[in-house]
Each structure stands twice: as structure tokens, then as C-alpha cells.
């Protein structure tokens, strides 16, 4: 293993950094692709400075060194060579030692910041440092004293595994029970409920005696009741089951469920448990339905995003553009390049990628229209073949420039994680934002088509080219602009997709069929049709998935579509009147 690699291993939590030279190189290759990057130069200059700025930041130096009891120091010391189950015991002993540094040490172990030196057997806590740092800020784990920075080669991380991490979380939660913040305490109780035993129950009891916050008190009561449910005393069980009525927590449900059907349960307890379980079941059904609906809408909005650009090039102009997926791919790679250029501003990079991707894919679209498509108007088969060939060329181009490997685009913090509405219902932020984003893009596009002179001309040319030209519309210019607009929207869709799936050369391929499906189903030439059809296909797909499985659901949807097109060849919302003949 080379040195750089070890550095990467020793600095957890830090994104693998990119060296200046590499960034330059990648930036250059990116510029080949994204010829229109005006923002590139200033953004690049900015993050070199930002890089230099983050190279500091030691941890744990501020705490006063306490007089450590003998066993605490010994336990921490033993962590260095212990097996995973020994470490669990040691962690328990560290908590019992009551040492004020117990939490710091356990948290460091959980975060992978606890290191040991095999020569002197000492244990250290390592602070934050960039990937390629040659020295790490360290402090003594036992005393908290800040020491001289050390080379990553001299110390080894003390490893954890899933079981140990779970134990650590519960232990830390126990320590956090006395935290001044009520929110932290509530979280701590919730964490402890996942793994109740005598010692955690005792800790909860003790806390209950002097807890003042009603919210925390309620959680503690629930936790204690959960403990009682497992006991043998029927009266306590009954009280617990009654108290837990209305609690939607999984642990509670799983504890009540066997009581509600158990043969040797006290009948009163069984009735109370059954009532509580039925209550949860009822809400579970409702929230499951809501969740499925949300999944459907979010799949639908991805479909709408990828299809809406096509609705313009295919729907309005009648060009079968098989390279549409690759224009999305270009957009996704633009997001990746933006992130390379400004690695320390992920949110800004994603937001800036939206206009950048519009420009890159839009210009690529204009180039395709001027270079290929315009010679093939009125010859759909040849257009299809030419653009299909072009899609292969674009894929291979990306493979040569960026390598065939998938690239990762980080998700900004505000988009990751879930919005936990209650114990049963949560929405993932990234999907929620993408639904919103799809609606915004749709609204913006509607505005462009209905309220701007470009939109007017586009509609005029698509309805009656000869007449529009007679009125002085430069139809060639309008063609190029329309194609560019459709392609630009595809680029924006690519940015959204980069948050959900792989950024790789095959990105476009997986969406092109779906896009055509949505446009044809919605009715060619109708943006509203695209919106409705995308959303409804998404919902139908997600409704079928739990029963039929992902593979069959997709087949059913396709079969349904084929049958539908047989009956209504012009889709859901066919164009009417004269436009239909054009």
C-alpha cells in the first residue's frame, strides 16, 4: 500500500480529495466537453484557497485533564488489541467508570477517530485533517492533552464492527441521558429503546426521577412500559399496553404483537394489546398507501423530467431524437464536472450545474440540429438512425474522456436524509426536491411556450411552417432554438438524475425508452399530456410493484401502453384542430 492510500484510510469522514494537478487535468478534459464554461476559472481559483483554509482544526484539546481512575485508563489502553466482543465489554466498563472523558473516548471510537500506536501501546484521538495530510492532529485519549501532530504511518485505527457500533450507540445514549438539551435526551431514550435490558431500564428509571421535560418524560414512560411488557406481571403488562396505545414505534408494535395473539397471555392484557396493535395496523395501512403514492409521484416526476425535453423535440418538432438520453448524460456529467471544480461547495455546485447543464446540453442540441437533423427533416427513419449513431458516439466520447467508470456526484446536505413525519411515515428529501424541481421546470417551460415570442414562433412553425415563414418567422432559426431548448431541458434532467443514480456513459440509455413511452402516452405535442402521463405511469408502476415485483410491473405497464395506443393512437390528449394535421 502506498503512502497516499494509507492517508486515505486514516482520515475517515473526509471525502477522498483530488490533488491540484489531477483537478487541473480533469478540469481540462471537462473543458473539452463543456466548451461554454464561463464560471470555471473563478470557481477554480476560489477552491484552491478554500482547500488551504481547511487544513487546520484540532479536536479535544480544550478539555481539562481529569484525574483518571486506574481502571478507566487501563480499559482505554486495552482497546488497542481487543477483539470486537472484548471491546464491547471494555466500552461497558468505561461507562461504569464514570470518568468525564468516557463519552469523548466512546464517541471517538464510534466515529473511527480512536487510534493506537503499536510501539508504545498508547491510545490517541485524532482530529480532523485533510486526506493527504502528512501529519495528523492528535490528543491523548486518556488525559485529553493535545500532543504533537503525528504521521499517519505511525498509528493504526482501532476498528469497529456493526455489533460494536450498536452497543456504543446505546452506551453513549445512556451517557447522554443527562445532557442539558431535551432534544438530545429524547433521542437518547429512543436509541436506548432499541436494545432494552436491565441496566438500560435502571438508567431510565433513575433519569425519570429528576426529568422535567414532559416530552422526554413521555418517551421514558414509553421505554419503561416497553420493559414492563416483557415482564411476567399481568397488571404491569396491562398498564403498559394501555399506556402504549397510540404509540406507532416499531419496537412497541413488535412487543405488543405476540401479546395480542398469545394463548397464555392474561385476557385483559391480550385485549389491550390487540386494541393497540389494531390501531397501529390501521395507521400503517394509511401511511403505506400515502408512501406508495409518494413513490409513484417521485418516479413520475423523474419520468416527466426526462420526457419533457423530448416532448419538445419529438412532440412539437416531430424529430425522433435517439440521442436524447445522451443529452441527459451530458447534463449529469456537467454536474460532476461542476463538483470537481468546486469540491468544497457541493450545494453551490449542484445549483450552478443546473444553468450550466442547460447551456452544455442546449448547445450540443443546437449543434446536432444544425449539423445533422436539419438535413433529415421529413425523413424520420434516417433521423432515427443518425441520432442513434450519434448517441453511440457520445457514449464512447464520454468513455474516452471520463473513463467507463461511474462517477459519483455528492448529494448536498439539504437533500440527503429523510423527513420523518412520525414513526411510520417519512419522505426522502432528495425525492421531495426532485418532485418540486420537476414541477418548476414544467411551469417554466409552459411559460416559455405560452408567454414568450420564442414560444409563439415555435408553435407557429410547428403548426404551419409555410405560413409562419410567410409571416416573416425565420423558421431555421426557430428550429435550432427549439431543438436547443428541448436538449437544454434534457441537460437539466440529467442534473436531477445525477442525484439519484449513476453518472456513467449508460445513463441515457436507461431513460430513453421510458421518455418516448411517456410522450407517446401523453399525446404527441402536448406538454400537459406529458405531465399527466408521466405522473400516472409512475403511480401505476409503484402501485403494481409490491404485488407483481419490479420486473412484472414494468411488463404490465408496457402491455397496458401497447393496448392503449391500439385504441387511442394519438395518446391521452391528442392535438385537435388544424395543428393535428400538421
Amino acid at each position, binding site marked *: *500500500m*502506498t503512502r*497516499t*492510500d494509507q492517508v*486515505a*484510510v486514516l*482520515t*475517515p*469522514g473526509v471525502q*477522498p480529495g483530488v490533488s491540484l494537478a489531477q483537478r487541473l487535468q480533469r478540469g481540462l478534459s471537462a473543458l473539452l466537453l463543456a466548451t461554454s464554461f464561463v464560471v470555471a476559472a473563478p470557481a477554480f481559483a476560489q477552491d484552491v484557497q478554500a482547500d488551504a483554509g481547511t487544513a487546520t482544526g484540532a479536536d479535544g484539546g480544550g478539555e481539562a485533564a481529569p484525574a483518571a481512575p486506574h481502571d478507566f485508563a487501563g480499559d482505554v489502553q486495552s482497546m488497542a488489541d481487543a477483539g*470486537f466482543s472484548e471491546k464491547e465489554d471494555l466500552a461497558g466498563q468505561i461507562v461504569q467508570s464514570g470518568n468525564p472523558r468516557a463519552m469523548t473516548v466512546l464517541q471517538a471510537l464510534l466515529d*473511527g477517530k480512536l487510534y493506537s500506536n503499536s510501539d508504545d501501546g498508547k491510545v490517541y484521538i485524532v482530529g480532523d485533517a485533510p486526506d493527504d495530510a502528512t501529519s495528523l492532529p492528535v490528543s491523548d485519549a486518556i488525559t485529553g492533552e493535545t500532543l504533537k501532530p503525528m504521521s499517519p504511518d505511525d498509528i493504526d485505527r482501532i*476498528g469497529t*464492527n*456493526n*455489533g460494536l*457500533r*450498536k452497543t456504543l*450507540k446505546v452506551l453513549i445514549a445512556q451517557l447522554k441521558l443527562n445532557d442539558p438539551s431535551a432534544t438530545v435526551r429524547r433521542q437518547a431514550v429512543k436509541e436506548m429503546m432499541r436494545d432494552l435490558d436491565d441496566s438500560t431500564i435502571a438508567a431510565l428509571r433513575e433519569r425519570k426521577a429528576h426529568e422535567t421535560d414532559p416530552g422526554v418524560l413521555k418517551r421514558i414512560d414509553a421505554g419503561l412500559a416497553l420493559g414492563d411488557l416483557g415482564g411476567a406481571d399481568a397488571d404491569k403488562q396491562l398498564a403498559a399496553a394501555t399506556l402504549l396505545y397510540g404509540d406507532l414505534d416499531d419496537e412497541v*408494535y*413488535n*412487543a405488543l*404483537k405476540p401479546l395480542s395473539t398469545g394463548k397464555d397471555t392474561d385476557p385483559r392484557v391480550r385485549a389491550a394489546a390487540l386494541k393497540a396493535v389494531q390501531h397501529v395496523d390501521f395507521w400503517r395501512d394509511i401511511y403505506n398507501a400515502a*408512501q*406508495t403514492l409518494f*413513490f409513484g409521484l*417521485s*418516479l413520475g416526476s423523474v419520468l416527466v423530467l426526462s420526457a419533457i425535453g423530448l416532448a419538445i423535440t419529438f412532440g412539437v418538432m416531430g424529430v425522433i431524437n435517439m440521442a436524447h438520453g445522451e443529452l441527459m448524460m451530458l447534463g449529469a456529467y456537467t454536474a460532476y464536472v461542476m463538483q470537481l471544480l468546486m469540491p468544497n461547495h457541493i450545494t453551490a455546485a449542484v445549483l450552478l450545474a443546473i444553468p450550466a447543464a442547460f447551456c452544455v446540453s442546449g448547445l450540443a442540441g443546437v449543434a446536432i440540429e444544425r449539423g445533422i437533423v436539419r438535413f433529415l427533416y421529413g425523413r424520420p427513419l434516417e433521423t432515427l438512425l443518425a441520432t442513434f449513431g450519434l448517441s453511440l458516439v457520445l*457514449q*464512447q466520447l464520454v*468513455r474516452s474522456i471520463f473513463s*467507463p*467508470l*461511474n*462517477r*459519483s456526484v*455528492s*448529494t448536498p446536505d439539504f437533500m*440527503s*436524509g*429523510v423527513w420523518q413525519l412520525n414513526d411510520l411515515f*417519512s419522505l*426522502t*428529501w*432528495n*425525492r421531495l426536491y426532485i418532485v418540486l424541481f420537476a414541477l418548476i421546470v414544467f411551469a417554466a417551460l409552459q411559460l416559455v411556450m405560452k408567454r414568450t415570442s420564442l414560444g409563439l414562433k415555435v408553435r407557429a412553425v410547428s403548426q404551419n411552417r409555410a405560413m409562419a415563414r410567410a409571416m416573416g418567422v425565420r423558421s431555421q432559426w426557430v428550429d435550432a432554438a427549439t431543438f436547443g431548448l428541448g436538449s437544454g431541458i434534457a441537460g437539466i434532467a440529467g442534473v436531477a438524475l445525477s442525484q*439519484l*443514480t*449513476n453518472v*456513467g*456513459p*449508460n445513463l441515457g440509455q*436507461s431513460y430513453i425508452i421510458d421518455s418516448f413511452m411517456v410522450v407517446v402516452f401523453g399525446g404527441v405535442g402536448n406538454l400537459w399530456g406529458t405531465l399527466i402521463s408521466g405522473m400516472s405511469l409512475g403511480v401505476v408502476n*409503484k402501485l403494481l*410493484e*409490491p404485488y407483481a*415485483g*419490479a*420486473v412484472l410491473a*414494468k411488463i404490465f405497464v408496457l402491455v397496458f401502453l401497447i393496448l392503449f395506443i391500439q385504441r387511442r393512437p394519438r395518446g391521452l390528449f391528442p392535438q385537435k384542430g388544424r395543428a393535428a394535421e400538421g
Partner: protein
Amino acid sequence: MQRRNLIRTMIAAVAAPLLMATSLQASAFDGEIKVGVLHSLSGTMAISESTLKDTVLMLIDEQNAKGGVLGKKLVPVVVDPASNWPLFAEKAAELLEKDKVSVVFGCWTSVSRKSVLPVFEKDNGLLFYPVQYEGEESSKNVFYTGAAPNQQAIPAVDYLMNDVGVKRWVLEGTDYVYPRTTNKILEAYLKAKGVKSDDIMVNYTPFGFSDWQSEVAKIKAFGSAGKKTAVVSTINGDANVPFYKELGNQKISAEDIPVVAFSVGEQELSGLDTKPLVGHLAAWNYFESVKSPANKAFIKEWHAYKKDPKAVTNDPMEATYIGFNLWVKAVEKAGTTDTTKVIDTLPGLETPNLTGGTAKVLPNHHITKPVYIGEINDDGQFDVVWKTKTEVPGDAWSDYLPGSKDLKSDWVTLKCGNYNTKTKQCVGQKN
């Protein structure tokens, strides 16, 4: 006129040193041995397979620097089957019949291997297949240097069952031959261990599946029944990234529902932000993080070859490394590149693997491999949490499937790939 002259001069200027270089090199060797490389360099599988092409080229360079094989220079013949399964067969025929290569290193997906199998058997070629696969196959002309199910899937399930205490199982896979066969074996194995059918959920998704919301929600619901649940994932290729992203988004942590993957290695993780995935597992016979002198040297060489200090290594690369070294040993021992003789020499040969152990070729054309279970850490590598004490011999025919448990593969004494031990008959290809 002038321009044409200019072009001519340029060609001459470029060609002269090239010619000189080749003639110089040729003089150091006593002839050539052609080595076929059959990995997709374009299409879906390029992401995984192009790395193996580079690995073979690196190994060939290295071997030539050591003086080649039998004093002859190794010359790679690289073809691109473009992730197109029928094209694999065509390209294999091209390598064996037109280029007359002595050995082929290639294939990744099982469907590509199945596609080239008849070609290798017809032309009596020699294929080294470097990827973990579903077993249930044995060919005289193929050496399987990747893991059979008993060298990856079964030990991984054992680890989860005994060390983690998993009681409920989700078998989640991509819809094609490898996941379906592996899951069939695993289901039979779990039931043999007393797991009830209620506690097993099997689920398939299409290739390149990207909308994992409902699937992950289903796993979450299945896992919230109070018993320790784990996901055994045979999800292949691109679909992994959105799958893991969705796991992270829905806050399914490895402490609650660990996912053990058979197709996710360092290479796949290098395209991912691994912070939400910390603790999820993978079972392989090699991890880049395993500390051994051989591995250290190999990684160093790979970085130098790729001119990228961040290039990762993975299990199929190690399998390619083992396969290549075994072939070199066999050719040197046999004193010829004649396929039949090399195939007969290979069983019994040993070569060090990269993790400090030994890979031995078995009569069934599989090799011995150690099994490692690793947890994903936050810099895209695996921390080894469990390993087998010794190397596990690869088994071509699973002991847990009704059709295959009586079958035995032995190309040394029985000279048969699928000998039925009950009927005492060779059912398929014979030597």
C-alpha cells in the same frame, strides 16, 4: 504536393523508431506466444471488465520484463466483445481460429461465459475465468479462478447466521442466471439450516434498475418484525449505486439491517459516497485492505501502471493475477503452450495468492481460496471482520441443490465434468 511530402516525412519519423524498437525487442526473445484478452471495453460491462484487460496487460508486461515464457515474448491480442453476448462467441472464435492464441483471459458475466463455452470446447481452447459465479458448470477447457458459491455465498450466510445472529433473510438480486442460481442454492441451504419460508423473502429487479424506493421500503418493513434481518444482495452492476443511495436515504443502517453483497467491491464503491454505507458487508476472496507483502507490491505496481495513486484493486483482479501465474507455471512445467498438455499440467499446481495464502488448482478446474467478510468503511475500502482459517476448495456442483448434489467434476482421474456418483455415469462433456 508539399503537404503529401510533409505527411510522408511525419509517418517516416514516427515509424522509424517504432520499427527499430520492435526489431530490438524481438531480438531478445526466441519467438512469440499470443495471449488473448476477451473483456468488454465498451457497453454496460466496460465499467468492470476494462480493469481486467489492464490487469492482464500489466501482468504480460511484467512477465516480458522477466524474460517472457519459455524464452518467448508474450504478445497480447485484445478484442472488444462490447458487452454483447453473441459477440463474445464470435470474438472467441476469432481469437482461437484466426489469431491462434495459446490462452484466453476473459469474460465477466455468466451469460458471456455460457456464450463462449461451446467455442472453447470445439476449438480446444483454454479460458481462465476470473469472476465469482453461480457454479453448476464444469468444462475441460475452462479454469475458474473466481469463487464458486461455496467459496463466497455460503460462508457469508454462515457468518451472518452464527456471528451476527440473523434470523430473517432477504435475497435481493438482479434478474438473470447468477443471482437466480445463487439464490436457489442459498434458499435450499437456509431451509436445510431450519429457517422457515416466512423468514425468507426473494426478490428480483431488472438490470440497471434505478427506482429502489418501494423495494427498499419493502425490505424495511420486512426487517421491522423484531427478528434480526439481513439482506443478501446479488444485485449486479449499475443498479447497486441507486440501491445503496436509497438505503442511505431511508436511513437503513447496517446495525439494523446489514446488506451483504457478492458483486460490490472496491471498484464499484469508488463511484460512491460511502458514508451512508458504513458497516454494510461484502464477501470476497480478496480485499485491497488485506495487509500482506504480495498485496502491497501488487497495489504499488497497479498504481504505477495506471499512473493513478488512487486506482483501486479488487477480487476479480486477484483472480486474474492467480490465473495468469498458474498459466505461466503450467506452460513452463509442460515446456509447451499446447492446450491439451497445459490443461493436463494445471491440476495440482500452486501459486501464492495476494493475501498471503496459496491457490491450488483442483481436479475440478477450480482453485482453493480464502473467504473474507469485510465491512465498508468511510473511505471506500473494506475492514475485514471475519475470514476462514484456511483456504476453501471450490466446488463446481452445489451440495444443496437436488439436481447437482450427486454430481462430481474431476478432470484428472474420472476425466469427466459431471460424473453422477449414484449412477456411476458421466452425463456430459468427457475428455
